[in-house]
């Protein structure tokens, strides 16, 4: 922990020198970027990130890039982030247990002993719930799901909050390119993450859903280093990984997608309705259905 802090101090010093170098040599060609629907707030500072390259172990800065304030500088609503992460961990849960009721257990049709004059309890069936090996009253019933969808507005805001937190904690990095890197040696990538103070786990995000080259090879052998496409980005992973590295094209796509949703015409809190998706889901599942037997509940 201490070593990490010291290293971060060192890197911040390097960072400042790099800033001076970059500003003096005027290598920074892409500082300015046209940000779509940038808020007209004079007090709002445009967040920025360095663009670096993944070809060398050392962090060589290639330039600065402006980030959209609506996405990378929102108010850090931890509660909304929490709602998102809770939803992500809950909504896919399925419980397949089914406790049989009195009616569903075999037997138990006969009255075990006469109603009166035996000194025993008045019972009508050996499957009554008070019996051992009887049926269950109020048991767990059948495939149970916890599926629900959060409103779009909450999910979009959750993503923005997660990105903002990552950026403000210096855990969000932008690189020029992820595809077709030269070096696929795991040692190289361990050194790289060590030298740049990336922390334990790193998530690379790219525009396309296929990765080739060095990163793909390294990702095979290092379980804490993973690559995700832009559409796979989510709050849980953003928080789970210590560092998130976006490629330049991924940054563009994320901003474009999120902003188009923020500014879209329809309502953002539209309810998810099963009947809208029912036909599609059942049609896709036709291959899994048995032609004769219904699924076992």
């Amino acid at each position, binding site marked *: 922990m201490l070593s990490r802090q010291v290293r971060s101090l060192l890197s911040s010093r390097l960072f400042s020198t790099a800033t001076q170098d970059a500003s003096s040599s005027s290598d920074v060609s892409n500082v300015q970027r046209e940000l779509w629907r940038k808020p007209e707030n004079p007090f709002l500072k445009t967040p920025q990130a360095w663009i670096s390259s993944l070809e060398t172990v050392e962090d060589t800065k290639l330039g600065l890039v402006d980030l959209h304030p609506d996405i990378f500088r929102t108010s850090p609503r931890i509660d909304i982030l929490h709602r998102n992460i809770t939803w992500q*961990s809950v909504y896919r849960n399925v419980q397949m247990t089914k406790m049989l009721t009195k009616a569903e257990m075999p037997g138990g049709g006969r009255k075990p002993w006469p109603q009166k004059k035996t000194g025993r309890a008045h019972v009508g069936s050996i499957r009554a719930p008070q019996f051992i090996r009887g049926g269950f009253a109020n048991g767990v019933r059948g495939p149970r799901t916890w599926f*629900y969808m959060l409103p779009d507005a909450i999910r979009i805001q959750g993503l923005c909050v997660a990105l903002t937190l990552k950026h403000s904690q210096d855990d969000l990095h932008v690189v020029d390119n992820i595809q077709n890197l030269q070096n696929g040696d795991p040692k190289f990538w361990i050194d790289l993450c060590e030298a740049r103070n990336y922390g334990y786990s790193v998530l690379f995000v790219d525009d396309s859903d296929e990765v080739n080259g060095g990163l793909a090879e390294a990702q095979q052998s290092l379980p804490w280093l993973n690559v995700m496409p*832009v*559409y*796979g980005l989510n709050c849980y992973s953003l928080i789970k990984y210590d560092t998130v590295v976006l490629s330049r094209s991924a940054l563009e796509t994320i901003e474009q997608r999120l902003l188009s949703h923020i500014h879209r015409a329809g309502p953002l809190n539209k309810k998810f309705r099963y*009947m809208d998706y029912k036909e599609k889901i059942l049609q896709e*599942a036709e291959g899994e259905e048995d032609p004769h037997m219904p*699924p076992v509940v």
Partner: protein
Amino acid sequence: MASTSLSRFSTVVRTTSIRAFHDRSSVPRVVDDREKSSAKYADAGYTFRYHQQGVDPLPRIPDSKVPVARPEYKIRDQWSDDAARFGQNDYIDLLGDGSVHPAQLQYHTPTWLRGFPGQHRANELIKLIHYRNLYDAKLKQNSPKRWHELRKRIKYLMMQHNYNKQDEINRERDLGLWEEEPDYTYKDKSRRSFKDEIP
């Protein structure tokens, strides 16, 4: 020895309040022995060990070789392939091109429950009716016993909800399973629709 002296000491000291089991009956009960009405059980044999760390060992049969039944110890790998990618496509409808929805990707769920509201929203009755609507013909043809059981369960739940759970019936609104009609009998007139009869 120490415990007996302690208990003796405590009986001497405890004059103001005797910590006893919760007893909400304020009415004196008829008892066969008048001592019983005042002598309440205050000790169930459990003492809270404030200053003793750890867990008491359970009583064991000495020299027994039978291992204690307990769940198998599992090491969960946080960076296994599944765990490292947990939640990967949960935002695919927003970040993707809009053709796929996460409800379609729940391949671990039975097909008829993918995207169906969970049981905290749609109760067991609604779930079973949905199942019946999809598989009624197949059930009747190929598995008549299960069809019969399903009908019995639905009938039972119908009665349960209509007689005992009437306060929960309006939770079946807004489930997204069928088109919602406005509630014409709702008392708040501002929420009533233009279709209302205006006298």
